């Protein structure tokens, strides 16, 4: 029976949320191919959540433990996953910073190409077929892959869904590898916030905020939502108001949250490239002709300094009643 390998991502000994999305996708693919699903978890020791992966459709959970797996090990992880991939017809990754580094390494070791940042996946016969945004989201490319199909899935595009399978945990031996690169540490960013590429709500500010201190208004709204990340346009990142990690757009991050709120952002094509796949878009801008309104589901025309405090209050009120 064919099988699919789903690569789980963890940080500080816990699985990351995106892993459940990858596993859900693997399960769906397996069901249409009549295949089984192996989830692989790499770490220095036990990873919290690994035993529960059966809930999201893993038939088997392979745990690969190694002293050098406390942080990401590009060479160790790719050697291990390439070894585990033997006999699998597809290998699925999350298109995160780690997955984007890892998927092409594994593909190269397996001697095949890879389809990155896919937003949809299906099968045609025994082939995996994916859809991926190209040209900064201005076109969609449909790609057919051979076997094994190496694919990375854009976070937040395929929601995690439970589908209980056995989830039998087995240890997988890490092959010998040469660590050509060593990851020393993970430093906290200067502005520690939820990451825009993974949050389900993203609230971004632009030049309309006038000065960096006014981002407090955005932070307050994000806090009112609770699960929101703060993003920014390039104009304010280049001006040094926000970290580069917060930048949404063609030269920043591509986000697909359930809700994207653009505040004081004009909606330049390069900004739209990063957020047009959000499920719901809200724009607040005082210029009724701003291009952002062309992609916004809900627009409010007016002064953000007047609107945001009221909006934040209203969201807090709704949240407190839930």
């Amino acid at each position, binding site marked *: 029976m064919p099988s699919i390998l789903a690569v789980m991502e963890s940080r500080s000994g816990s699985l990351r949320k995106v892993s459940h999305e990858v596993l859900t996708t693997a399960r769906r693919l397996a069901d249409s191919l009549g295949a089984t699903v192996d989830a692989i978890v790499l770490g220095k020791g036990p990873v919290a959540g690994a035993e529960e992966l059966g809930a999201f459709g893993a038939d088997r959970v392979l745990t690969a433990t190694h002293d050098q797996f406390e942080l990401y090990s590009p060479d160790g992880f790719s050697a291990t996953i390439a070894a585990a991939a033997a006999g699998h017809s597809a290998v699925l990754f999350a298109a995160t910073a780690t997955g*984007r580094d890892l998927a092409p390494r594994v593909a190269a070791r397996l001697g095949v190409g890879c389809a990155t940042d896919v937003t949809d996946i299906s099968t045609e016969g025994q082939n995996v077929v994916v859809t991926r945004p190209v040209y900064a989201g201005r076109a969609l490319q449909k790609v*057919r892959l051979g076997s094994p199909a190496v694919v990375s899935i854009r976070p937040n595009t395929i929601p995690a869904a439970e589908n209980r399978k056995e989830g039998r945990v087995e240890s997988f031996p890490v092959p010998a590898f040469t660590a050509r690169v*060593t990851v020393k540490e993970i*430093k906290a960013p200067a502005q520690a916030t939820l990451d825009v590429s993974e949050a389900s*709500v993203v609230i971004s500010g632009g030049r309309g905020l006038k000065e960096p201190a006014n981002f407090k208004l955005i932070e307050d709204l994000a806090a009112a939502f609770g699960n929101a990340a703060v993003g920014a346009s390039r104009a304010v990142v280049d001006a040094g108001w926000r970290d580069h990690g917060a930048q949404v757009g063609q030269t920043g991050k591509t986000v697909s949250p359930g809700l994207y709120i653009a505040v004081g952002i004009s909606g330049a094509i390069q900004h739209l490239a990063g957020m047009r796949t959000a499920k*719901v878009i809200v724009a607040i801008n005082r210029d009724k002709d701003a291009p952002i309104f062309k992609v916004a589901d809900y627009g409010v025309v007016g002064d953000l300094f007047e609107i945001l405090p009221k909006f934040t209050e209203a969201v807090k009120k709704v949240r407190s009643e839930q």
Partner: protein
Amino acid sequence: MPVANFSRGIALKIAVCLKRVPDTTAKIVIGADGKSIDENGVKFVPNPYDEYALEEALKLKETAGSGETVVYALGTDASQETIRTALAMGIDRGVLLQSPPSADGFEVAKALATELKGGGYDLILFGKMAVDDYNHQVGVMVAELLELPCISAVAHLTVNGTALEAEREIEGGIEVSTCSLPAVLTCDKGLNTPRLPSLKGIMAAKKKPLEVKPVSLGAGTLSTVSLTLPAERKAGRIVGEGADAVPELVRLLRQEAKVL
């Protein structure tokens, strides 16, 4: 800012892989084959992330005091113009690997790796991704094929002798990695500010060597089935003006969009 302290007189050999891509504001029209874009009237530019790679190569060579920088582009003859732009920035010479494009990044990586192998490069630089295919893979694959250390999406670099320390952005943090030369790096925004070609540079570029080598790519394991335009977002609506619109906005977010 990158800090390199090679002892003066040690020559540094750096390769940069450069792709010609449509300008990011170009209007996308699907071509007659339904699998590629219609290139008519589209302005092409060097891939923006590759400009960070070009700048880093030039800067590292300047700091080292001597060396050679070489740019490689795989593409049709049209890529010669892109290579000339790199030469005008200050890159010493160019190589065009003449071939039609491929949907399979691994095939491109194999052709580049074959060419780069044995070139004696201390560093091979790439962009973190090409803004046309968004593949995010060729640089890393070349490193795997050449069995070289590779750090991808580098936004900050420190070079000390043959030791490299690089920072890359990951979700909610900055990952700090080390490796030693020879190595492959893929470059992200933030690494540097690419220089513009000077008039003198543009004149000099015309006389710099540009070698053209035909290559043939394998069929690969990926094929494009179709290229389509994304569905237009359905026309949104203006909920209202000013703070008075807030109650209605909140109601819509709760009851219609169900995101609150």
